[in-house]
């Protein structure tokens, strides 16, 4: 990078060549582009390289200062032997330094977790607010709604859901043949979050919706808050009707919020319909699947203990009224028994 010096007149054209006349004085801020190797100075890799180069320069000067003293000592003290040892040591050092430089360059470029750092820059009250907002559908759909692009909340929600699923699977006595309980739970939750996000992002790309992948991940991640709540309640309290009510209300609210945000960012009736219909279907059906796949058979046990007339429970929707009645009866009987015994 050299700046043109002075105002030498190298006028070769009749109309005046356009390099030196305009550039005046030394210390100008003009960069001579001929000598630059990089084509852009601000891309990500180049910044990494510049950083690395600066660090290396520091290291090299520091080491040169350090080895100066050592080499000085050895040279004086050990004479000829010191020379050979010194050379060998220097060569070995150079090789090691070069290898380390290469490795650390590659590592800093690709395995740098600082890439993800901006997405984790949140405060606890922000996370809390976003959790609550994920259940509140927005009203304004004519104006693109703001979606926070952070990954901390969604990741914590996914892990919480893994923990809740584990609890549900364990208490339902689910037997996993090919695989482990933990692997299935993690696979299900992460697969849903990443897979459905990518799929909806792809659809949004097709339908010309203004949403980035990060925003989609964040939106769907916060939408899992409703799933966590519903599953947490219904894996412990086993009323079918309660589950359906919660599914519709809480699941519905969360879906409505996501759908409203997407609608506000899409134009046209058909794209809106496709995108939001798909998202709504996937979101609600996932909650349904999670409940019924790992459902605890406690109603069946209660029924067989209480009375012989009640048919055994089947895991289909048709028996819901029977089960709900039976469980309500059992609960009332137990409450009556407790009240009487007091």
């Amino acid at each position, binding site marked *: 990078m050299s700046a043109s010096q002075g105002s030498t007149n190298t006028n070769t054209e009749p109309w005046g060549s356009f390099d030196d006349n305009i550039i005046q004085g030394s210390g100008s801020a003009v960069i001579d582009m001929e000598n630059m190797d990089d084509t852009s100075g601000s891309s990500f890799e180049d910044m990494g390289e510049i950083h690395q180069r600066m660090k290396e320069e520091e290291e090299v000067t520091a080491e040169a200062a350090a080895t100066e003293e050592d080499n000085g000592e050895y040279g004086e003290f050990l004479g000829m032997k010191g020379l050979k040892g010194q050379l060998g040591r220097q060569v070995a050092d150079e090789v090691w330094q070069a290898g380390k430089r290469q490795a650390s360059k590659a590592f800093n470029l690709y395995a740098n977790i600082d890439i993800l750092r901006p997405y984790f820059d949140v405060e*606890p009250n922000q996370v809390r607010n976003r959790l609550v907002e994920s259940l509140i559908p927005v009203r304004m759909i004519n104006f693109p709604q703001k979606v926070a692009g952070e990954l901390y909340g969604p990741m914590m929600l996914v892990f919480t859901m893994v923990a809740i699923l584990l609890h549900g699977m364990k208490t339902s006595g689910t037997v996993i043949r090919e695989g482990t309980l933990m692997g299935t739970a993690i696979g299900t939750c992460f697969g849903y979050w990443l897979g459905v996000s990518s799929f909806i992002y792809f659809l949004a790309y097709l339908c010309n919706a203004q949403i980035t992948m990060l925003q989609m991940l964040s939106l769907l991640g916060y939408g899992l808050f409703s799933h966590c709540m519903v599953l947490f309640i219904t894996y412990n309290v086993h009323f079918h009707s309660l589950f359906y009510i919660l599914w519709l209300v809480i699941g519905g609210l969360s879906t409505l919020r996501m759908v409203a945000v997407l609608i506000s960012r899409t134009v046209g009736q058909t794209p809106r319909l496709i995108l939001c219909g798909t998202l709504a279907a996937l979101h609600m059906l996932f909650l349904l699947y999670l409940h019924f796949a790992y459902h605890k058979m406690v109603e069946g046990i209660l029924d067989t203990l209480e009375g012989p007339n009640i048919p055994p429970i089947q895991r289909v929707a048709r028996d819901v009224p029977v089960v709900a009645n039976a469980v309500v009866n059992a609960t009332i009987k137990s409450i009556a028994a407790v009240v009487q015994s007091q």
Partner: protein
Amino acid sequence: MSQFAGLSDISISEDIPVEGDISVPVGSQNPDDDFSTLDEPVKDTILRDLRAVGQKFVHVLYPKKSSALLKDWDLWGPLLLCVTLALMLQGGSADSGEDGRPQFAEVFVIIWFGSVIITLNSKLLGGTISFFQSLCVLGYCILPLTVAMIVCRIVLLGALSSVSFVVRLIVVTASFSWSTFASTAFLADSQPANRKALVVYPVFLFYFVIGWMILTFSPSP
């Protein structure tokens, strides 16, 4: 010969006489040799390491603001605890029909991957602690849960009743909160003040999952 000009500074100056004592000093030329432990008997090495591990156990059980866990971290203690916990959660029946209890590999993977994820999370949130220090702290803080596992197994040697369940619940809850408290005493210091809750929650979840695995453990009939 100008290309060899750069080599001229490697040559010895003529002032130095090439005579005298050519006894090369044996022993520490570079300071690393002082700490070479290859020559000591194996018993010494093992005892020293065990003593370090034991000292860190004491620090976990009485979590004060000391930096012993952080300054010389080691991963022996976490490995020991992890293997003990995973073996005890096996229960002895190795058939795959009773799939209710976790496999050895499952527990191992949960503990190590969980620790790695919590460490990454705390680093991403701006923590000043290094990767292995954090792994060390999280691993050592599993000690109360391992103790709870031992207690639960002893309790389960008796009858499998609701009393035993309540006792186990209390023991596991106490030890899980102790673990969480101990690890946050070490980890939360390295975070900015208002983000402590963001770091504590994954730790809480991690120890909760391990505590739940311990609580729902039932021995084979």
